[in-house]
């Protein structure tokens, strides 16, 4: 079956059942997924641009009266499709823990302080070339209950739309050289080493702002289409 968005691209994703990440055991389907041709319903998708984003929504350090504690960073890159083209005007959302590794979410009650000057949510749209940029602070690692002494490597959660509903992606951006990588079942649920690398941002000295903020580059690659134009009837 030839699909407009080849499903071979999906091989990069983790297996839904990845038992080392315990919550997957009861939350992954056991019956086979049904393979089907993409119809117009799958090939179209929500189109949201600038009207969805307020000024400064991409700067998580100026959403409150004071500045958040922690290491200010620039996180930027391109949203691309698999064919290497920039994905323009697409919504990019992110959320993250504060510099201490604490989420503002009410369920996160681990003993690290909240920061009254940091919510940890942002959104922006990519420009005509697919470029996006956030200013935030570097999140801390945090403990979780998956196994004894489990800690998540520092990460920023990303949500991206792209060209169609089947290109929808929710992922996590990691920081280079994190010593927690070998011990994290979520990071290692991606079994291909090259694919894991694509979740790790790169330190970007060139775009670091002297006396102000370090920069990390994170390109997000979404599914691409076959060269054939989409048929609509």
């Amino acid at each position, binding site marked *: 079956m030839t699909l407009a968005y080849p499903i071979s691209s999906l091989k990069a*994703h983790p297996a839904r059942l990845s038992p080392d990440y315990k919550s997957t055991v009861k939350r992954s389907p056991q019956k086979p997924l049904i393979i089907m041709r993409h119809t117009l319903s799958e090939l179209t998708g929500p189109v949201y641009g600038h009207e969805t984003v307020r000024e400064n929504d991409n700067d998580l350090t100026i959403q409150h009266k004071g500045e958040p504690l922690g290491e200010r960073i620039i996180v930027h890159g391109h949203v691309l499709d698999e064919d290497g083209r920039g994905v323009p005007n697409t919504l990019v959302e992110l959320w993250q823990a504060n510099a201490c590794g604490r989420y503002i979410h009410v369920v996160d009650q681990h003993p690290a302080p909240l920061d009254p000057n940091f919510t940890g949510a942002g959104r922006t749209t990519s420009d005509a070339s697919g470029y996006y940029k956030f200013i935030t602070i570097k999140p801390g690692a945090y403990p979780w209950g998956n196994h004894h002494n489990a800690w998540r490597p520092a990460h920023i959660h990303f949500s991206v739309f792209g060209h169609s509903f089947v290109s929808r992606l929710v992922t996590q951006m990691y920081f280079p050289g994190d010593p927690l990588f070998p011990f994290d079942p979520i*990071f290692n649920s991606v079994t291909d080493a090259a694919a894991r690398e694509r979740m790790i941002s790169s330190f970007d000295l060139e775009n670091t702002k002297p006396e102000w903020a370090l920069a990390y580059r994170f390109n997000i690659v979404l599914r691409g289409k076959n060269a054939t134009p989409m048929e609509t009837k």
Partner: protein
Amino acid sequence: MSGITPSQTVGPYFKYGLTPNGEYEWNDAFDGNLVTPDTSGERIRVEGTVYDGDGKIVPDCMLEIWQADSQGRFSDPQDKRALPNTSFRGFGRVGTSKDGTYAFDTIKPGQVADPDGKPQAPHILMAVFARGMLLHLYTRIYFGGEAANAADPVLALVPADRRATLIAQQANCTGNAVYRFDIHLQGDNETVFFEV
């Protein structure tokens, strides 16, 4: 560079960023009400509960829907036919409540052709995200009592004994139709999911 960025779980803490719903200092980009004042079509509510493989409710699930308008047109320029002439966007997003329930207020979509030009029965696409899900799942919401279901080319791919998991059933007799669509991530009653 080749290959896409792998998916990772939405985790347990997405609510304040993606579905704050007035509970956090952040605004909702999207919510569960898709209806705009100028939308034409039959107003409906789709609601249900999300369950895990033990039959326990899933209170930290995010659901997104994508659908055509009442005339089967998508609010996306990639739909090359005439675009909807309303502000109906066809996209909604909610987080499940503490009791695992969700609801969308929308309109019943019109029919959309399959790649052969054959009409599909009215349906809504749904993407399911949660802690414990490393990659979201796609399902489709069809409507009970809809004659077109019998000839729908996608439903025809689904084993007959599992088709009912895709068909929302009307739960009320008066007022705007309320359709019930529960989602079972796993188990005997597992919802049919699609590899798309």
